């Protein structure tokens, strides 16, 4: 994978730092709530405010979540990890330091497999994942000359997941990020909500002439919070760096911000102005010690992960690989699909078609999540069953689906109420076929003269007469018999 510049081919090197907010009820070092969207500072207890004399106490749930993540990405879960203080002054950082992990993180040496542009599997190294507390928020809007501080978010638990610089394009970066996003939601350790900032990332981007061993100077793009912006920001940055180098300039190691309105990255601060964070082990917290028994107990709770689930959907349900991939993109969608399959007699591919097709379309149209679907899984199974037992045709089923989506009851309710039951009585179909043949002598003659395509015309006429309720297979057979 390379990018063409005016001077030749360039290789793009990207490493990502993902900040995933952990889905705990209370903060990482206090009992204050982590709920989103409360009035400013209503969820800021004395620990969140960094009052004199208060002390942090680790929320053990975050250890379990980090360990689960570590196991899910084949990483080492450290038997001993240490919280450290990262010292810097900022108004939304109440203590003047952030409690994070530095030299000894809880997770190290993991990996994630993505599919690259050529369709090949590619391994992306995960250097480490460490636990830390989030800072608060500075508010400038609506305040004239002053700034407001909201410390509701201060102390919210984060898992920072750092990749190796193994990614070679914006597309790969997004593919990796989607995988991480899927995994944390599968594990139930993060809601992955990017609008609310519970899943965001920093991208370290550099370029080097194709074939060069040494890495180029990198720029760090901060706080990217949508897959689309990440791709655009990286692509802009790659282009900017190549242009600059080819124009005889150099890249400065710096922090940059992506402006989505202008679709560009801008310098925030350079390394010369960077803080010396004076990290040291936090004396208020004991090292986190994790036993083998603990790790095994966490492993026992490991849910089936996307890759395994996808493979199982292909082997057990005979699904097309693409469909299995789509259905396992989120755990709730996969669970929904499996509920449909278990309640339906039909072949799973038909269930898959409905979930991926009409259901996904309706959800998308109404902006709903699968968990808020207006048609529960067992109801969709009911519809699939009526197709399977020939009560209705696939075409009529679409009409039934819409009625169900609009709250008109179960598939059977809709079919009964609208009289949509399929006509399978041969004599009734024969009568209609006879009528169609007698009314269209010209077409009959043409058909008999060899214009086979006209069969569609006759089928259409019959379906029209029966308002689409005749069994299409039977109509076909009877027509062919009578016209031969």
């Amino acid at each position, binding site marked *: 994978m390379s990018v063409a510049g005016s001077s030749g081919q360039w290789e793009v090197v990207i490493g990502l730092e993902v900040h995933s907010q952990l889905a705990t009820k209370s903060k990482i070092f206090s009992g204050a709530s982590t709920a989103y969207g409360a009035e400013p500072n209503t969820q800021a207890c004395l620990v969140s405010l960094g009052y*004199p*004399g208060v002390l942090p*106490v680790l929320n053990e749930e975050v250890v379990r979540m980090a360990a689960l993540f570590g196991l899910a990405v084949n990483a080492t879960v450290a038997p001993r990890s240490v919280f450290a203080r990262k010292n810097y002054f900022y108004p939304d950082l109440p203590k003047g330091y952030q409690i994070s992990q530095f030299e000894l993180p809880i997770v190290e040496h993991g990996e994630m497999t993505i599919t690259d542009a050529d369709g090949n599997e590619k391994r992306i190294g995960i250097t480490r994942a460490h636990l830390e507390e989030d800072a608060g928020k500075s508010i400038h809007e609506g305040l004239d000359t002053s700034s407001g501080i909201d410390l509701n978010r201060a102390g919210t638990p984060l898992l920072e997941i750092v990749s190796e610089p193994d990614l070679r394009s914006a597309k790969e970066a997004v593919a990796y990020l989607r995988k991480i996003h899927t995994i944390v939601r599968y594990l139930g350790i993060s809601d992955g909500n990017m609008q609310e900032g519970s899943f965001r990332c920093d991208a370290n981007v550099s370029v080097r002439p194709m074939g060069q061993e040494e890495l180029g100077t990198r720029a760090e793009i901060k706080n990217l919070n949508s897959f689309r912006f990440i791709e655009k920001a990286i692509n802009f940055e790659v282009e900017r760096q190549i242009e600059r180098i080819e124009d005889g300039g150099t890249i400065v190691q710096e922090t940059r911000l992506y402006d989505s309105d202008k679709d560009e990255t801008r310098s925030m601060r350079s390394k010369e102005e960077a803080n010396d964070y004076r990290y040291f082990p936090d004396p208020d917290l004991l090292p986190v010690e994790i036993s083998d028994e603990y790790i095994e107990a966490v492993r026992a709770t490991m849910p089936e992960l996307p890759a395994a689930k996808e493979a199982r959907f292909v082997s057990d349900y005979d699904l097309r690989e693409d469909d299995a991939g789509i259905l396992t993109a989120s755990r709730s969608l996969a669970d929904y699909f499996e509920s449909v399959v278990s309640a339906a007699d039909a072949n799973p591919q038909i269930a898959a078609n409905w979930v991926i097709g009409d259901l996904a379309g309706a959800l998308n149209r109404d902006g709903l999540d699968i968990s808020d679907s207006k048609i529960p899984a067992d109801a969709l199974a009911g519809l699939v069953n009526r197709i399977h037992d020939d009560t209705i045709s696939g075409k009529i089923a679409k009409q039934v689906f819409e009625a169900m989506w609009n709250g008109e009851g179960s598939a059977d309710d809709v079919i009964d109420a609208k009289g949509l039951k399929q006509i399978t009585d041969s004599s009734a179909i024969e009568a209609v076929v006879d009528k169609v043949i007698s009314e269209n002598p010209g077409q009959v003659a043409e058909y008999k003269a060899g214009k086979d395509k006209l069969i569609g015309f006759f089928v259409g006429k019959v379906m029209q007469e029966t308002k689409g309720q005749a069994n299409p297979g039977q109509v076909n057979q009877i027509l062919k018999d009578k016209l031969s």
Partner: protein
Amino acid sequence: MALHTQSLAELAAGLRNGDFTSVELTESMLARIAAHNEKLNAFITVTADDALAAAAGADAARAAGKGGALNGLPIIHKDIFCTQGVKTSCGSKMLENFISPYDATVVENLANAGAIMLGKTNMDEFAMGSSNETSYFGPVHNPWDLECSPGGSSGGSSASIAARLAPGATATDTGGSIRQPAALTGTVGFKPTYGRVSRYGMIAFASSLDQAGTITRSAEDAAMMMSAMAGFDAKDSTSIDEPVPDYAAELGGSVEGLRVGIVRQHFDDGLDAATGERVKEAITQLESMGASTVEVDLPNIDMSVPTYYVVAPAECSSNMSRFDGVRFGHRASDPKDLLDLYCRSRGEGFGDEVKRRIMTGAYVLSAGYYDAYYLKAQQVRQLIADDFKKAFADVDVIAGPTAPAPAFRLGDKVDDPIQMYLNDIYTIGANLAGLPAISVPCGFVNDMPVGLHLVGSHFAEGTLLRCAHQYQQHTDFHKACPEGFE
């Protein structure tokens, strides 16, 4: 018998017997404070009304057959402990107007046991100092000689106990801040094992060294207070989940067979000769009571002061960061921007010694210096802890001087930080190793008190208190009262 001369144990008995009420006792102590505080400057805040109301409550509880082990007994708190609704200044301009919205666990535990808070005592700013001269509220005067320092940082607590303004005080000890002031005022200063008493609500100076304890006139009183103060606290991750023994019950028994270690380096040139004599006499006294002495070696103990003055400032520099003028404490007026708000709030709010330690600490943690200073100091700290561990394989306690000399005159060392720091040369080791230690009055040099320092192994509080108590049964140095405070 006057109430102010009695120990906590005697006062508890008097209350039980109905000889006097808690209100009477509290009133008499408040009267002592009113009469004597002006010359000592030992209090930053006196909570007279609250104390009298609490005393009335304690009397009612006693009448109803209720009340904890310290019911109705007046005590004082070092102004480093957060007390709900009461100014908690930490001896600093930074917190001059800070009213704590919550109680420290120590404060809560003592209140639950029925103790009555009379007020908050003066201290070196943020507990950084060995003379009480760094306090924003002015130095405390030693009741034995008003021109001398009562030691620091818990000088307000030590002076008050020596002057009989209260029977018991809380204090904190990061490098000797309980024991050195106790030695310089002829009182008993007790620092338990690190983690024995919760640090929650105790404003942090150097978190890995800070430990709360007591200043009293007897080891027996220290035991009484400690039984109420100590114990696991879920709000402090470094507090230790071990049951708290009834320390008072461990005071009996003798020191027969007790092995007392003597560290050769503790009697070197740095020690005032007369002070050394008093300490040796005290050790002889212990021997006469049945203890044996053994010379022990602490090969790295000479490095304790430099080690401490890397580790403590490092932690201090980070702990002081929350005082930024944003949410509480001193805020500079009319800041022109954020940097100005930070610089002037901190520049105006902190005194010189605090600034000196913040700068030292920031330096030793800086990129490029961390390994040479902070990391190296932590390694030496481990060596010192190992030395103690080895020594305690052969002895039960280690005895020596608490401070190198009796109280010095106010102003004498204030311009020489190194001389000031050397005051803690014998006490710092126990903090670096997290060990319990006690200072007990053991005589006088030129009418100024001298302290005997005893260090125990982890959780050997009972042994230390017993040793100190038995020693006090055979001596009456702790009964001597400074002139003018009888």
